[in-house]
């Protein structure tokens, strides 16, 4: 028997509701926990990366690569670690104490663990941080640094009592000062621009974690890590960690064939089901930090998008639930809409900014969208396309070639918008020209890329919307007058409550512009071989590599 589409619709809605209820809240950390003593000695963990770093110096412009961070996670410490809730705490292996000892000027006093040494055997001292901060400050052009964020506000780093104790003085207050307390590598590297720029093209900077690089095979794309014999903390359980370069196309198959022990970042249903088909794996799902959004260029659409009403109609005429369902549904996960511009759902301080701004949440409401357009004077013309003063409600949707999920989103939104009187056309461009030649230069009407949230959203996410001149402010909103103070507070206020308040105000202001319509958050999904503990899907929590391993039988 054939079901009518209404019946089907009902069923689908019910189904989704059930799923959402079941897993109404994903955990923030989904890995299997085990006590250190319950973990087997030895074993190898085989993981995949998509490429090897161009430069192993993570502070170099060429070293800013997610894959590099993945590889060096067990070899490079920042002095702090994150809890399941996303709060930081000091890592006693590295830092004994760190606190703000003066508010104005902001001074942070740190004391390092004197046992800590680099792979070279040299102790990790304040001198390393002094040199590191100088290199990253951005004053010396010879250092080709990736980012100077935070460091440019550092006035001076000084050694105080002994070589393990020191002070960091800031020019202006910096809220996330905790990210700046520990050096990434010995001062020998940060003293010498040549060494800094080119010294670690083929090899890793000295490790200060429980593991170190045993070998790097560039031609085969394999990095092998082994236990760091200079490691001073409790001994790691795993004997080796192997990272192999595996192409996107091959990932699911490689995992299915048992050539990898874990598959991270499963983002589509096909990979998901192929990974889940392996019988010795566990699928772990946690909340994720990746979220997709619909970007509306204020200067796009031959000017029609400058009209806030048109943008609002787009927002209300887009079935975000369905867009999310297409991607998240096959992952057996609930669609979690994101309605905040700084925090992820589940993160401390998250609220619905649309509700805050308009009193009601942003729901899919085509009638209301049409009403808004009607009110704004956009009248239905030939072929169901609205016009006003001779202008057509015609937009183009920019999509990168060969990113299926992106074009799927675009096509869904396209048909939603066509329903309410838009004429939306898809415009596909080469994947690497997508950002460089279109988005960065504001040559688009609608886009739907993704952002990756961070553990320090307040400092890092504001420049997506502010200032007007920010390179990441793709949609071109101008909130310069409105939110300047709030952003300042977000970046420099150390009192958390005050900061959250400012953050929510900021988010509300962005919501009101209808320039960026957040869609849904993608859960973080890992497939991990059974028996592996203390490693897997987590939203914030740092991995303690000493206790990653195989559970004792």
């Amino acid at each position, binding site marked *: 028997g054939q079901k009518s589409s209404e019946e089907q619709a009902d069923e689908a809605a019910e189904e989704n509701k059930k799923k959402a209820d079941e897993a109404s809240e994903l955990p923030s950390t989904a890995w299997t926990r085990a006590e250190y003593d319950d973990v087997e000695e030895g074993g*190898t963990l*085989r993981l995949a990366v998509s490429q090897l770093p*161009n*430069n192993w110096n993570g502070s170099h*412009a*060429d070293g*800013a690569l997610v894959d590099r961070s993945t590889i060096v996670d067990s070899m490079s410490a920042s002095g702090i670690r994150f809890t399941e809730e996303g709060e930081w705490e000091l890592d006693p292996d590295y830092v004994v104490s760190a606190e703000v000892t003066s508010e104005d000027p902001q001074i942070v006093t740190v004391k390092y663990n004197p046992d800590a040494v680099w792979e070279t055997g040299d102790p990790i001292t304040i001198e390393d941080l002094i040199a590191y901060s100088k290199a990253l400050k*951005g004053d010396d*052009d*010879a*250092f*080709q*640094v*990736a*980012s*100077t*964020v935070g460091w440019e506000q550092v006035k001076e780093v000084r050694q105080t009592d002994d070589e393990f104790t020191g002070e960091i003085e800031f020019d202006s207050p910096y809220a996330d000062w905790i990210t700046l307390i520990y050096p990434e590598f010995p001062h020998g590297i940060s003293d010498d621009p040549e060494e800094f*720029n*080119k010294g670690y*093209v083929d090899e890793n900077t000295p490790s200060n974690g429980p593991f170190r690089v045993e070998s790097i*095979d*560039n*031609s*085969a*794309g*394999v990095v*092998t890590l082994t236990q760091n014999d200079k490691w001073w903390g409790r001994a790691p359980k795993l004997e*080796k960690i*192997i990272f*192999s*370069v*595996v*192409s996107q*196309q*091959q990932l699911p*198959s*490689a995992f*299915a*064939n*048992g*050539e*990898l022990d874990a598959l991270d970042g499963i983002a589509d249903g096909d990979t998901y089901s192929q990974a889940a088909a392996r*019988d010795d794996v566990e699928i772990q799902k946690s909340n994720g930090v990746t979220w997709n959004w619909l970007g509306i260029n204020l200067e796009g659409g031959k000017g029609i998008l400058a009209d806030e009403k048109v943008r609002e109609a787009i927002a209300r005429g887009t079935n975000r639930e369905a867009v999310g369902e297409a991607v998240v549904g096959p992952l057996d996960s609930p669609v979690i809409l994101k309605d905040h511009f700084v925090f992820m759902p589940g993160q401390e301080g998250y609220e619905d900014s649309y509700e805050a701004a308009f009193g009601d949440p942003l729901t899919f409401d085509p009638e209301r969208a049409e009403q808004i357009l009607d009110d704004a004077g956009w009248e239905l013309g030939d072929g169901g396309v609205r016009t006003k003063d001779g202008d057509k409600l015609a937009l183009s949707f920019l999509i990168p070639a060969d990113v299926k999920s992106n074009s799927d989103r675009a096509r869904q939104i396209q048909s939603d918008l066509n329903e309410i009187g838009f004429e939306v056309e898809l415009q596909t461009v080469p*994947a*690497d020209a997508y*950002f*460089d*030649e279109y988005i*960065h230069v504001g040559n688009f009407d609608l886009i739907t890329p993704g952002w990756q949230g961070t553990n320090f959203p307040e400092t*890092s996410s504001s*420049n997506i919307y502010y200032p007007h001149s920010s*390179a*990441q402010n793709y949609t071109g909103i101008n909130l310069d007058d409105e939110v300047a103070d709030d952003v300042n507070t977000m970046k420099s206020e150390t009192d958390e409550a005050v900061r959250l308040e400012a953050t929510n105000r900021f988010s509300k202001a962005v919501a009101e512009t209808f320039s960026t319509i957040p869609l849904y958050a993608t859960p973080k999904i890992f497939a991990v071989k059974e028996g592996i503990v203390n490693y897997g899907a987590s939203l914030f929590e740092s991995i303690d590599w000493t206790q990653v391993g195989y559970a004792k039988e």
Partner: protein
Amino acid sequence: MTKYLLRRFVSYAILTALATVFAYIAASSFFRPRNRYEGIQPPISESSIDAILSDYGVNDKDPVLLRTWEWLERIVTAPLPEKLGQDLTNKWVLPEMLGDPTRWLFFWEQGWMGRAGVSLRLLIIGAVLAAVLGVAAGVWGAVRQYKASDQVISYASYVLISTPTFVGGVLLMILATKLNSALGFQLIRFTGAYTAGITGFWAGIWDWLSHLLLPTIALVLFGAAGYSRYQRSVMLDVLGSDFIRTARAKGTTRTRALVKHGLRVALIPMSTYFAYSFGTLVAGSAFLEIVFSWSGMGQYGIQAVQTSDINAVTGNVLFSAVIILFASTLSEVLYAALDPRVRV
């Protein structure tokens, strides 16, 4: 002939040089490696970007002609490994492609070969097997034209030919996984060139082979399918020739007449095909390498174009020029060797 080869060599050297310079100028004019650094979040300072780009010699703030001039200058003056400059992943282009020439003879060792070595290791066996199998299937099909076995070979080759590499690769991987789980142990591994952490000579060889198996099968199947269609067709042309009848009158068996006389003549046009398709294969069996995560030349080329890596693109063009011209010379020499009627 020696003179001919010499003349040819000179002509090809010019062509190679032209192609390379053209590639450099075209890439320099159209590619914008700067974009790569501009999109990064948090942003990198412009001076850093300028410094890096100038280091690579690809700063778009310098006029193309100036950059080309400097590039040419470097080719003349720089030490050999640095002649082509660095790619955007900080590797010297020449060693990245060719590895360490002093160790070329130790081909069984791992991790020395450069991308060309990776490609060759993957391709040589496969290409040769594909040719052999393709020829065999083609001859068989021609000889038994429209009989059951010919039909089976034909339809099988239609299926294979209409399967793009990336599709075929994925399907093969799925099948291999099924096979492995049915067997209960890992007969076939297909991720990259080897499994890291394997020690011991025999274990190493075994691992090496088990990684080669799948991409080789892919190459052989898809290659042979195409070859067999061509071979079948030429072979059919030859079968009606009088000289086959002559051979039969001398008392050769059917098989011998077909192989020694028929196939030998049918191979003449195919030799060109083999030489060139091998050349194009080496110069860019990109999809195969990508699907199986082998970081060979083809993958390098695609990555270079996708990341607007001017020096790497140029290096790639130079490499494929050398390979193609080698293939072209090979085809000519093969042709002359196979067909005494053509005088060069």
